[in-house]
């Protein structure tokens, strides 16, 4: 009985790992989509005019979700301490904290720290738009990859569980 329970637990554990791997890919796609959504909101605001960054970040952090919300909230707070940490460094630090976006996703965001608030609205709009498109493409690529690899992860997890059970029995 104990052996059987152990075998079930090992198989379930390996299966869970496989499903987690697949879920990780889905989470990354969601994070990239949320971030792209946040940048789209930013674009809309910039299209309406040239609001100062603190007010802009305030409004965006209330409307955005996921990593975009965390990024905008961090910016809002950091804008009160500009004499200690310039905006470009603040943006870099906050972007690097967004682990859910993956390296490529963070790479798409990084250049915005040198542009936001520094140039006229049109130039900012173009950069934000470019970063958003990059994130959307990345999300689409990750989604396709996730569909393919997700099934592989799940199958691998289940198979390795069964394999372990056979070995241990």
């Amino acid at each position, binding site marked *: 009985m104990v052996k059987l329970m152990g075998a079930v637990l090992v198989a379930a554990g390996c299966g869970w790992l496989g499903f987690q791997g697949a879920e990780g890919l889905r989470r990354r796609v969601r994070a990239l989509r949320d971030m792209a959504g946040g940048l789209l909101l930013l674009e809309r605001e910039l299209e309406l005019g040239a609001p100062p960054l603190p007010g802009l970040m305030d409004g965006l952090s209330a409307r955005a979700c996921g990593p975009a919300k965390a990024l905008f909230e961090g910016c809002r707070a950091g804008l009160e301490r500009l*004499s*200690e940490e310039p*905006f470009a460094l603040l943006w870099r630090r906050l972007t690097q904290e967004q682990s859910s976006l993956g390296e490529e996703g963070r790479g798409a965001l990084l250049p915005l720290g040198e542009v936001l608030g*520094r140039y006229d609205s049109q130039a900012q709009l173009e950069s934000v738009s470019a970063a958003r498109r990059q994130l959307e493409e990345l999300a689409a690529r990750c989604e396709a990859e996730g569909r393919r690899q997700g099934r592989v992860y799940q199958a691998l997890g289940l198979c390795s569980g069964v394999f372990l059970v056979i070995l241990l029995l």
Partner: protein
Amino acid sequence: MEPRSKAYQQAAGALPARLRREALSLSASDQGRVEELRLRAGWPMTARLPEGEVPLDSPPVRPEELDQLVEIASRASVHAVLDQVRQGYLTVEGGHRIGLCGTAALRDGEIHTLRRLSSANLRIARQVMGVSAPVLDGLCPGGVLTDTLILSPPGLGKTTLLRDIIRRVSEGEGCRPRRVALADERGEVAALYHGIPQLEVGRRTDVVEGCPKAQGLMLLLRAMGPQVLAADEITAPEDVAALRTAAGCGVTLLATAHGADRTDLERRPVYRALLEERLFRKLVRIRPEGPGRAYTIEELS
């Protein structure tokens, strides 16, 4: 804390951390006397005191610190204050003004922005409350402000006097309260910051800032129904034309002009028109007298 030191410390808040620490290392009495802090790339920061400009004991200002000054002053939103930057200045909370110098980036022959900043000066805004007390009675026969032109060479306090007259007329201090409309082209009188005047101009004062005086005066006349229309530094024929229109609407005029005396005014065509058309009834002249200022009121009509 003494209000003069408080204004200085508020202004120093716009500086990057290192420069702020150095600015605040001045003694409290010197902080109260500093008129400007000057930052020039490659040179130590200096403080302009009444007796002259003195260098602070500090390492030279780095170009990136000038960029950071603009970032802090604009709250990382240069795009929102680009109109001011094009004119070479930025107003920060408290009405303090940062003058900027650097390489101009041109677009269609006009200054689009300033890049690679080379120097900046942080002028500390300090309001002198009650400075108009010696002249107000003379300008308000029967308790109502009359059309007044304030005249003095630069640096003698025209804007300070104008601001205090506006405040008192708007509050009804020593005269009947009036609705005042102020065309503050360079934001030196009221120093709006997020829509709130940083220097007191009274509760019945409406301010338009950042647009050419003549257009600002006409906008105020149309939109705000003022009883007194005020403007700093009348310099162009368009300004005079706007004042002429306002005078025709029965609005009391209050303005300043550069010049030493009435003869100086009569010599220059723009101001001659003001005198010939009798747009102003009183002329206030300011001249230095010892450590302070002396005011003279002349009848113009």
